[in-house]
């Protein structure tokens, strides 16, 4: 096959090009021709097509995501905002923390183990690229029905992949989510979060500056991974013979990534890196164009110097390859020798593949012939932007009108007891330790709290005890009923979870998982959810530092529930003051904080007992969330509570059961005046938590709540070895434990 050089492209303007096969629209192809003033070469076409894809260009979501910047709250803690690999937050004492959630949904459905594993690998490299040492990971997951046969294929593979990669990398897994719902059948969600820590001065950015500086590719060799459709460019003709056979699946090598981490941190320590970018989706196309676009000059790359695993790869394929465990650094010429030495020390292959030029073009050569000559911004940052039409779905009104208030409620104590047992044993409410027990949560020796605690918490300074806490949440059922409120409820819950452990919420990241943007109903959900999230962040004072959008999570006409996953990062000055969730001290008083209303729309109860989804989700009151958080943080700081647990799906009874099982102690509960037992136990009103208060602190604590105007109701006492709702029923802890802990092993064990 003749090489499609820039010269050749100039000479053959009328050659048919497979832009449609590469996923480009006619007008997008025309725009590329207009930008270049000629037809693109095969390599250029490959770059544009992948960089202008939904995944890389955010073309459908961009107009909505802008609100995160426009409505960003004043916040001195934000050191690096949206637009970089990950945002960076000042957590004090000279430390900065970076964190981000990303999706790897589709690959994890095709090949659960490798899809999930490479999802972890990708987000870890994003964090590393900011200059930080990765210190923890989390994994928000959504699967189809727990008893569906395909879930038995997908879930164990995903869990083994996340564990296999993360454990081997030495990153404690400190939390995540596991939710089952038939809407995720065929579209499981595998989101992965990573947190990294650095000193302020260590922050690195993805930009190529300084004429003459070298472009170094280091890490794994480049193979034919994840090239997919681009292979049409590699075949002589893209009609008859069809594309060369290239795997769409990438295989991860966590060992290589561990070396990459240690090697990169050593390169940072010796100040050998001017700019750096990880290679993820779109591989070298993305890394070179983003580095050049963000920098001051141009870039020249000799593509034939890239070390290959497969010598038959075409230049187009090398540009597109999504081979894992690679990084691209910009290095001053005088520092190259030391750079390569450190790579050699870590058995990491490193190659100078090009340099920063004083021009404004990204130029790529193949054995001396030019195959790419483009303005990098047009590839990386000035892709198409769509104002997709959106409209509230017709069914939304009917869904909201179909409230949970008309569902039959338990009439006898016996029925209530049975329903409690059923809810705590249901797959979504059951213990997830069958899964989390496959993740190393101790490695690095800084884990203060990990699953099933409300948030994961790691110490970042051994001397002072400074630590950070992270929680992720996202209730797709609520979001389906009302995407605006649903996004805020996800934010509120995550925020509350962080505060429950005693940490002060600082900033958020998010992963927005939705159906097809070409469906106006889905686009409406997306618009509402982003608006809700942006408004919520403004009110809570927690800026969005970054995130990820995953669209097209749908099969045929059926989209997943809108699933905005929100991760909140908090800081705690001394991890010694963290508040755990376990009720461990007999005789301590249980206080319910916040207001309980009759709110069962979208609840766990409505799902488990009636397989029902309808009505409105619980009301959002972010002012109340803020107040609750302040109380929880003060209580932790001043030692007024020994345990706290946030209330969310499953309501009070779920929270109490979890805290009792965690501490191995029972509780005696009394239904407060003005509430019926059912609502007391199962309502999912937001803005609530339950705390365990030592008797000696009771007065001080209730005074504080009273003075600040937070309702605090004494609802019981830590006692015995059962959960008793006085006058109604008693459930022995052993029976609850069996119900709560037996479900997942029975399904997947």
């Amino acid at each position, binding site marked *: 096959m003749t090489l499609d050089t820039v010269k050749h492209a100039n000479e053959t303007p009328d050659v048919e090009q497979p832009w449609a096969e590469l996923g480009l629209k006619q007008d997008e192809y025309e725009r590329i021709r207009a930008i270049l003033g000629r037809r693109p070469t095969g390599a250029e076409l490959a770059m544009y097509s992948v960089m202008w894809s939904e995944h890389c260009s955010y073309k459908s979501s961009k107009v909505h995501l802008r609100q995160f910047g426009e409505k960003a709250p004043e916040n001195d803690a934000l050191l690096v905002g949206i637009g970089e690999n990950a945002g960076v937050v000042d957590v004090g004492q000279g430390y900065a923390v970076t964190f981000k959630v990303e999706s790897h949904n589709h690959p994890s459905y095709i090949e659960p183990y490798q899809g999930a594993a490479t999802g972890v690998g990708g987000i870890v490299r994003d964090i590393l690229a900011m200059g930080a040492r990765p210190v923890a990971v989390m994994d928000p997951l959504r699967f189809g029905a727990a008893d569906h046969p395909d879930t038995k294929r997908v879930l164990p593979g995903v869990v083994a992949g996340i564990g296999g990669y993360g454990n081997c990398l030495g990153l404690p897994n400190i939390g995540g989510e596991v939710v089952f719902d038939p809407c995720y059948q065929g579209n499981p969600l595998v989101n992965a979060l990573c947190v990294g820590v650095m000193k302020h001065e260590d922050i690195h950015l993805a930009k190529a500056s300084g004429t003459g500086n070298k472009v170094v590719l280091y890490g794994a060799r480049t193979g034919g991974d994840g090239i997919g459709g681009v292979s049409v460019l590699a075949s002589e003709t893209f009609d008859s013979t069809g594309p060369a056979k290239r795997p769409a699946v990438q295989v991860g090598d966590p060992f290589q990534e561990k070396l990459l981490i240690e090697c990169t941190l050593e390169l940072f320590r010796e100040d050998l890196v001017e700019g750096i970018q990880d290679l993820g989706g779109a591989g070298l196309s993305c890394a070179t164009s983003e580095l050049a676009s963000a920098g001051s000059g141009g870039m020249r790359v000799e593509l034939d110097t890239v070390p290959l695993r497969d010598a038959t790869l075409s230049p187009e394929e090398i540009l597109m390859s999504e081979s894992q465990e690679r990084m691209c650094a910009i290095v001053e010429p005088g520092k190259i020798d030391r750079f390569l030495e450190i790579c050699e020390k870590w058995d990491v292959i490193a190659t100078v593949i090009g340099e920063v030029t004083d021009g404004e073009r990204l130029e790529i050569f193949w054995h001396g012939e030019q195959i790419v000559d483009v303005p990098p911004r047009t590839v990386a940052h000035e892709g198409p932007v769509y104002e997709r039409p959106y409209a509230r779905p017709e069914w939304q009104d009917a869904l909201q009108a179909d409230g949970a208030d008309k569902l039959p409620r338990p009439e006898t104590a016996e029925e209530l007891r049975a329903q409690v047992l059923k809810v705590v044993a249901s797959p979504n409410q059951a213990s997830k330790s069958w899964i989390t027990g496959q993740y190393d949560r101790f490695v690095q*020796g800084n*884990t203060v709290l990990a699953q099933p605690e409300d948030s994961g918490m790691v110490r970042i300074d051994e001397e002072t005890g400074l630590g950070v806490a992270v929680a992720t949440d996202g209730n797709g059922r609520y979001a389906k009923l009302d995407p605006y409120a649903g996004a805020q409820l996800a934010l509120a819950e995550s925020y509350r979870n962080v505060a429950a452990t005693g940490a002060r919420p600082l900033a958020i990241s998010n992963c927005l998982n939705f159906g097809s943007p070409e469906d106006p109903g889905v686009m409406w959900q997306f618009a509402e959810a982003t608006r809700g999230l942006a408004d919520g962040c403004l009110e809570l004072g927690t800026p969005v530092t970054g995130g990820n959008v995953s669209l097209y999570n749908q099969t045929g006409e059926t989209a997943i529930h809108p699933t905005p996953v929100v991760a909140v990062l908090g800081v705690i000055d001394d991890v010694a003051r963290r508040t755990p969730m376990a009720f461990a001290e007999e005789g301590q008083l249980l206080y319910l904080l916040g207001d309980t209303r009759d709110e069962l729309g979208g609840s766990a109860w409505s799902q488990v007992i009636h397989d029902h989804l309808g009505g409105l989700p619980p009301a959002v009151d972010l002012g109340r969330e803020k107040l609750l958080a302040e109380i929880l943080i003060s209580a932790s700081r001043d030692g007024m509570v020994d345990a706290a647990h946030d209330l969310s799906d499953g309501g009070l009874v779920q929270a109490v059961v979890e805290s009792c099982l965690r501490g191995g102690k029972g509780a005696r509960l009394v239904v407060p005046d003005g509430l019926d037992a059912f609502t007391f136990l199962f309502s999912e009103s937001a803005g609530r938590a339950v705390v365990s208060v030592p008797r000696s602190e009771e007065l001080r604590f209730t005074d504080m709540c009273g003075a600040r105007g937070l309702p605090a109701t004494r609802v019981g006492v830590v006692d015995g070895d059962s959960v008793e709702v006085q006058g109604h029923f008693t459930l022995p802890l052993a029976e609850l434990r069996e119900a709560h802990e037996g479900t997942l092993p029975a399904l997947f064990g």
Partner: protein
Amino acid sequence: MTARVGVVTFPGTLDDRDTQRAVRIAGLEPVPLWHRDKDLHQVDAVVLPGGFSYGDYLRAGAISRFSPVMETVIEQAKGGLPVLGICNGFQVLTETHLLPGAMLRNNHLHFICRDQKLRVENADTAWTADYEAGQEISVPLKNIDGRYVADERTLDELEAEGRVVFRYLDGNPNGSLRDIAGITNAAGNVVGLMPHPEHAVEPLIGTGRTDGLGFFTSILKKLVTS
């Protein structure tokens, strides 16, 4: 002058920094050792920490066992240098045959991470002198290749010579023969175990227990009094 404990880093080692911290907390001086360096830098004892050296590819510990640093460790261990292998380090020690037997995939085939109760069966080794024989301790266990196997004769020999140092309590987590969690060589200077004492040295962190500190205070006592 305190004793110096070398902590080896192989490519893929994960718990080297944690082990150095544990050594420091116990009042010893940690000395990082690099797999390519034959020189042990006059350390008084060596810990082979946990992790996935070489990704656990081929077999856990199989590739690291051939590193330059191990040549010296093997030679000096035979001469009495105290060596502790934790998890991946234990796997390396069995691959070198400094300790008998081998480590295989857990019988349930899953990675397992949990707080594990152990009985200290032998409190006479270089690394367990600060415990009492029969003492029960809890330390984190985290591995996928933790099933200890050896032939019957070797097992009988280990039992007869009191060389089973730790046994799992409250349920065998992985199918290890005779509930063996850790063993020693005949001289008592080389000890290997699957659970992670270095993750149980500080209150609040990990499981919040400090039951693992005894390993490091044991070696401290041995080194400063001898």
